[in-house]
């Protein structure tokens, strides 16, 4: 029943063969060498400094939601960088390959990328940016912040949390390895039927695409369950639904979307896999298949997904604006309702991604109106933020700048989205770079909110602030880049430039493309500024240490515990009395009141099972891609067996006694006092990463 494969196959290696390694490719081969050298240096350094046990004990086996969140964010930043390089490559190809007289190198007629390679670059760019950069970054923040904001010691299911991270890591590894072993899909990040059928895409590219996405979907669903259960079950005493911090509401609405929409993607992918692996005819052009079924299934997930990524970003903005306006958030209730409304309506609009399918005027009108409805709750949010700032005491630090930038981009992206929602306009600009500019405006809202959040919550997680000067430099460079790249892109869209061109036929577009290339160069400078920002901040960390309430004007629970947050979050869980609990306590002068005594607390143990499971899912994905059947069976059996073993062993957890807790708390308070009275004159030293979040326990029995 398995399909006849084009090309070779062997029982031992499946479709894998030496010829699949692109060692003759003038771009990939040097990159591969660089990656290998980099990896060797990194591993060498870890060995040289004897950090393996530290890594294994403190990070790779951890179930601490803050460390898992940090690792999510690291994966997200690495993939953001990879996606950025892809973007740079796309822009460079397009500015180069304009008109019949443009030159070509590396075997390409125009520019430096062959059409096949160019297709892989933009497909990987889209998939990576949405699912392996934005998503892990947001999930990382939700992981770190939500449990502390609801006043819990960890997520509802710490082990599941670790599992989600390692499955996401496996997905990232799978798409990265497609660079050097075989190739990646070249038909766009959302693919089309029937070109993804084996007949028309005989390589392994589409298979890499299927299994990468499938793993991301699995990891995100598990994470979503965890966040939902944490919010429902783990809130601190007194925290009723009406007192939930707004970021928690945003995470809640986003994860309702994730939980319900990702299964649709998993089915769509599974059916593509059935076509490619078993010879089914779901999406084939003949034999009773239905091409548009694929497009519908994909966007039934796809549109809710875009709201899954933007709602947490809205939540981040809702935290940053009040803190640096020194006012409570305007319109809390409407904000909550708007989030829920967006989550609901996001289900009813998927067809706007293919008005041109020709479903007829009634269907198109219905979806057009539904799409425009989203503008109402979104508008409510925009006004709420504006009124939060109105007559506030504004501090224009870097975090605030990013949040304001996000607001502007939201306006632009929202307005152009409204234009696209009108079928008559959509027929003109569908599949043009106008659409590309629209969704980049929107996705940049997320990127802006994320960088704002990095600045805002960094001191909470690591105990010191990031350097303001370099953060602002990065912001202005990044914003200049945004303007230079996307304003011309909107214009080109109106002029009729279609998306995904590896060769631009119209020479009169050259000057616009030149400006966009300049923009991406400015973006590159902002990336550089980001690295300098990290370097300078870590170098000067002793000067920039902060106490629990790093900004002095924040409002929610996470600022009531120490910075960096101890692994148990709160020695004694706070009792919540008001919506903005910390602001309320500060106002009444009771924010320094400490708990009277400490009880024993119960914490989960670390486990190596999660990372092994992640490794096995990677092997499974790789084996499926290359059709190495024995390896599929072995890894699947290993996964099932490991699950059973883990279920037999369980995790009794361990107890931290009240006395020990008291010792650690007093130590933390002592350090905070030191920071308070030595500010800037005598820097308080301490490891940068070593101390972060790792309050060492006394006993060495573990």
């Amino acid at each position, binding site marked *: *029943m398995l399909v006849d494969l084009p090309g070779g196959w062997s029982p031992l290696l499946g479709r894998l063969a030496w010829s699949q390694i692109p060692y003759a490719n003038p771009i990939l081969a040097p990159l591969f060498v660089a990656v290998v050298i980099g990896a060797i240096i990194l591993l060498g350094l870890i060995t040289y400094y004897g950090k393996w046990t530290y890594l294994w004990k403190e990070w790779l086996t951890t179930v601490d939601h803050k460390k898992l969140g940090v690792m999510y964010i690291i994966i997200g930043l690495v993939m953001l960088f990879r996606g950025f390089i892809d973007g740079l490559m796309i822009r460079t190809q397009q500015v180069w390959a304009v008109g019949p007289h443009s030159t070509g190198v590396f075997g390409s007629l125009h520019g430096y990328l062959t059409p096949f390679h160019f297709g892989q670059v933009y497909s990987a760019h889209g998939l990576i940016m949405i699912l392996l950069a934005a998503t892990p970054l947001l999930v990382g923040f939700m992981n770190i912040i939500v449990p502390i904001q609801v006043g819990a010691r960890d997520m*509802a*299911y710490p082990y*599941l949390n670790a599992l989600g991270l390692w499955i996401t890591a496996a997905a990232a590894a799978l798409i990265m390895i497609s660079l050097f072993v075989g190739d990646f899909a070249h038909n766009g990040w959302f693919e089309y039927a029937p070109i993804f059928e084996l007949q028309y895409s005989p390589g392994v590219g589409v298979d890499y695409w299927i299994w990468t996405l499938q793993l991301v979907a699995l990891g995100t*669903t598990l994470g*979503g*369950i*965890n966040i939902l*259960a944490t919010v*429902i*079950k783990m809130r601190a*005493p*007194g925290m009723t639904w009406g007192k939930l911090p707004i970021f928690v509401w945003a995470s809640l609405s986003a994860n309702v979307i994730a*939980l*319900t*929409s*990702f*299964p*649709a993607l998993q*089915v769509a992918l*599974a*059916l593509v896999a*059935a*076509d490619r692996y*078993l*010879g*089914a*005819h*779901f999406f*084939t052009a*003949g*034999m*009773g*298949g*239905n091409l548009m*079924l694929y497009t519908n*299934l994909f966007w*039934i997930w796809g549109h809710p997904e875009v709201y899954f990524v933007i709602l947490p970003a809205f939540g981040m903005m809702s935290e940053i604006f009040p803190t640096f306006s020194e006012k*409570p958030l305007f319109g*809390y209730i409407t904000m909550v309702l708007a989030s829920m409304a967006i989550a609901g309506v996001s289900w009813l609009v998927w067809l706007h991604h293919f008005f041109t399918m020709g479903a007829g005027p009634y269907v198109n009108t219905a979806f057009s109106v539904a799409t425009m409805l989203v503008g109402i709750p979104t508008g409510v949010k925009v006004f709420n933020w504006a009124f939060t700032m109105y007559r506030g005491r504004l501090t224009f630090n870097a975090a605030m700048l990013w949040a304001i930038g996000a607001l502007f981009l939201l306006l632009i992206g929202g307005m152009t989205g409204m234009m696209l929602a009108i079928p008559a306009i959509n027929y003109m600009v569908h599949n043009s770079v106008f659409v590309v500019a629209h969704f980049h405006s929107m996705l940049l809202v997320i990127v802006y909110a994320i960088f704002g959040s990095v600045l805002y919550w960094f001191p909470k997680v690591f105990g010191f602030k990031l350097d303001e000067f370099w953060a602002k430099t990065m912001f202005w460079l990044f914003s200049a880049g945004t303007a230079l790249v996307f304003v011309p892109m909107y214009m080109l869209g109106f002029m009729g430039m279609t998306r995904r061109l590896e060769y631009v036929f119209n020479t009169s577009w050259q000057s616009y493309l030149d400006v966009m290339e300049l923009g991406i160069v400015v973006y590159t400078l902002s990336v550089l500024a980001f690295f300098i920002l990290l370097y300078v901040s870590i170098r000067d960390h002793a000067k920039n240490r902060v106490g629990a309430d790093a900004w002095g004007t924040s409002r929610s629970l996470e600022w009531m515990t120490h910075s960096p947050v101890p692994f148990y979050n709160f020695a*004694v*869980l*706070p*009792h919540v*009395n*008001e*919506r*903005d609990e910390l*602001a*309320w306590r500060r106002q*009444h002068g*009771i924010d320094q*009141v400490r*708990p*009277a005594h400490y*009880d024993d607390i*119960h914490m989960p143990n670390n486990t190596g099972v999660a990372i092994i499971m992640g490794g096995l899912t990677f092997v499974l994905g790789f084996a499926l891609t290359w059709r190495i059947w024995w390896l599929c069976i072995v890894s699947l059996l290993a996964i*099932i067996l490991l699950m059973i073993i883990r*279920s*037999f062993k369980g995790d009794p957890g361990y107890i931290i006694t009240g006395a020990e807790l008291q010792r650690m708390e007093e130590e933390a308070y002592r350090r905070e006092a030191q920071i308070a009275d030595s500010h800037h004159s005598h820097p308080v030293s301490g490891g940068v990463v070593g101390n972060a979040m790792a309050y060492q326990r006394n006993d060495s029995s573990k």
Partner: protein
Amino acid sequence: MSAHASTVDPKKAELWDTHHHSHDVISTRTLGYFLYLLSDGMLFATLFAAYGVLSYQHSYFGGPTPAEFVKPWYTFAQTIALFLSVLAYGFGMNALKHKNKSGLINGMLAAFVLGVVFLVLDIHDMSHLYSMGITIASSGGMSAFMVLTQVHATHIFFGLIWILVMIAQVMTKGFTEETVGRLLTLRMFWHLQAVIWVFVYIFVYLWGYIS
């Protein structure tokens, strides 16, 4: 200051959680599992949607249609087996209420055997179709038919493994917070699969038979 009027007197307010309360492990676990089942339900809903789109006359491309090979009574026997299995599981859970270990294990064993009957009937059916040359590759319509029914059967397969694991766990560990929690989540899983089977039976088998 919060937006709504402050009602708590800050001087008398309770600031820390003084009466230590622990979280209810079992209800946290069943909630999470319920959420997972929601996503499983969405998965089947999507498969049903795909089946709906691919069950027109032209979807079978002139090849075999369910009307030609579905035997309603055969599938009805499967239905009975699965429902009896759920019933047996229910008797087992009733024994759990009385802390009756052997009663629980007997119920689970019966549920297991009946589940196996269901699965064997399904496999027999599929191999019969295969021998007639009807496979997933016959047409778009048959692809949808096969995938929907066999994804359900796969769920049953993993449920059976899980039942065995739970029998072993109850025998070795007895009724702990962990095992009882798992018995409850497994019950939710098993019930949902039976409910989904009702839809499969009606919309795929019976509907396919009459149309």
